[in-house]
């Protein structure tokens, strides 16, 4: 019963978040997951549609489910949590006959049957798994301290998303740990970054995104790793605006988890497009490399004289654990 896995890229992944789409496709290919694009896909409606009308949002999402169904795809993966929420919500609500009737009127034809929609994160976590990923790692992210940031709706509401823990999700943690990265204990995994308020209420976004970056910095992270194009845009592209409001100068990069995964899998830059990040990843990788070298020296010194207990140069005491 191996179903063909459909792939719904979503609008952002065709524009500002192209690197998320490129690295997602490359990682899936490298890990043996075949993706078939939903043909002639259109916008899922995202947040704006559901804030205006639930039948409109249902119809915009259902059109894509119909496209998937017509192509024989009964399972569809998308990298974007907002697309995922729109597709899953429509699929769930269509079970109600009254709701379905109005959505079908907007569609002008019968609506889709059930289609299982999942995140690319869930596919990688469940189909390949941390163990499977570890076997493919060619360039471990040794020494890199990452704060996995899931955003609001990757796992919420739990009754709809049905994946991972809604308050303390771990899928991305485990995937990145399998890549050799050190996962910092990040309490803001699911706090809101300001969502789509960047244009209409920049002040709210500045406050919320600054909070997340500040926490990641306090946790000693080299980078915040994301799975959502809107979170990425707010934390990376809008960094100047966020720093200006908070009075801080946080330079921490914000790569997609698929970019770090691809890096660990040894994929070439053309598959990762790290050049599209506004805050460059290179300084974080360099810091990780230096830290790893320091740890290596500390380990060697430890072997030589266990009683001296030398601390690695330039590395704060709390990072000793990653040298173990």
């Amino acid at each position: 019963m191996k179903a063909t896995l459909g792939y719904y890229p979503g609008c952002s992944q065709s524009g500002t978040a192209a690197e998320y789409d490129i690295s997602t496709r490359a990682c899936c290919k490298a890990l043996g997951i075949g993706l078939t694009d939903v043909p002639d896909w259109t916008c899922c409606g995202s947040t704006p549609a559901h804030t205006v009308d639930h039948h409109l949002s249902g119809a915009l999402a259902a059109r894509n489910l119909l496209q998937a169904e017509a192509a024989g795809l009964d399972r569809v993966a998308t990298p974007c949590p907002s697309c995922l929420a729109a597709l899953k919500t429509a699929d769930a609500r269509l079970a109600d006959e009254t709701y379905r009737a109005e959505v079908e009127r907007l569609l002008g034809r019968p609506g889709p049957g059930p289609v299982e929609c999942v995140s690319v994160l869930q596919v990688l976590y469940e189909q390949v798994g941390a163990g499977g990923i570890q076997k493919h790692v060619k360039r471990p992210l040794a020494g890199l301290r990452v704060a996995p940031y899931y955003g609001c709706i990757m796992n919420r509401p739990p009754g709809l998303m049905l994946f991972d823990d809604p308050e303390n999700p771990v899928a991305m943690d485990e995937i990145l740990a399998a890549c050799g990265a050190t996962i910092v204990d990040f309490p803001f995994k699911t706090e809101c970054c300001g969502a789509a308020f960047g244009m209409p209420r920049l002040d709210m976004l500045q406050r919320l995104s600054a909070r997340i970056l500040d926490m990641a910095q306090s946790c000693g992270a080299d980078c915040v790793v994301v799975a959502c194009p809107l979170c990425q845009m707010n934390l990376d592209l809008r960094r100047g605006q966020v720093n200006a409001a908070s009075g801080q100068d946080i330079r921490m990069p914000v790569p997609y988890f698929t970019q770090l995964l691809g890096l660990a899998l040894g994929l070439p830059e053309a598959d990762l497009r790290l050049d599209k990040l506004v805050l460059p990843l290179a300084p974080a990788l360099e810091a990780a490399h230096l830290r790893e070298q320091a740890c290596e020296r500390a380990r060697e010194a430890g072997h030589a004289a266990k009683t001296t207990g030398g601390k690695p140069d330039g590395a704060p005491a709390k990072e000793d654990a990653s040298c173990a």
Partner: protein
Amino acid sequence: MQTINLAADCDQAFMDAVARESGQDLKSCYQCGNCTAGCAYSQDYDIPVHQIMRLVQLGQKERVLSCRSIWLCATCQACTTRCPNNIEVATVMDVLRHMARRAGKAPERLVKSFTDGFLASVARHGRVFEAGLAAVFALKSGKPLQDAGLGPAMLTRGKLAFLPHQPGGRGKEEVAEIFARFENRTDAAPAKKTGEDAQ
């Protein structure tokens, strides 16, 4: 502090409509405040979300539909996730926003303008045309330079497409048809009728 006259202002039809449109059992809210405690936007709200739930229970239609909070909810789903009585609080906020639109209320004008602009872009292209949306919003918002500083970073990283990314087949037409049927609905809050949505 405002005084509410429960006897005079209680709108039973409003309470019933919110319950029906959201599909939620509003009576089961016992004001624990978990939703407000977890809400990232509480400090921006004029009425905290647990009080909105209470005002709905009391049929306070005018106060609820006129507030700013319902426009500032990001649907982050923390409230729904943490409600001990399994009320989909974020869905209730969504429904209140629908009702406020139908009643012609939008105290957060720019939030409504952004939403309308987004949907107008989808109606026109089948997918969101990010640069077009940003340009139109910049002109209409009255703060045209707010995001101008993002331009150079986007340009140098190839993140600014000057042409819309459109579906190849019938997708664009089908999406336009969905919007056309939606706007012909009698109770619809059309995305195009007001002047600010004409792009």
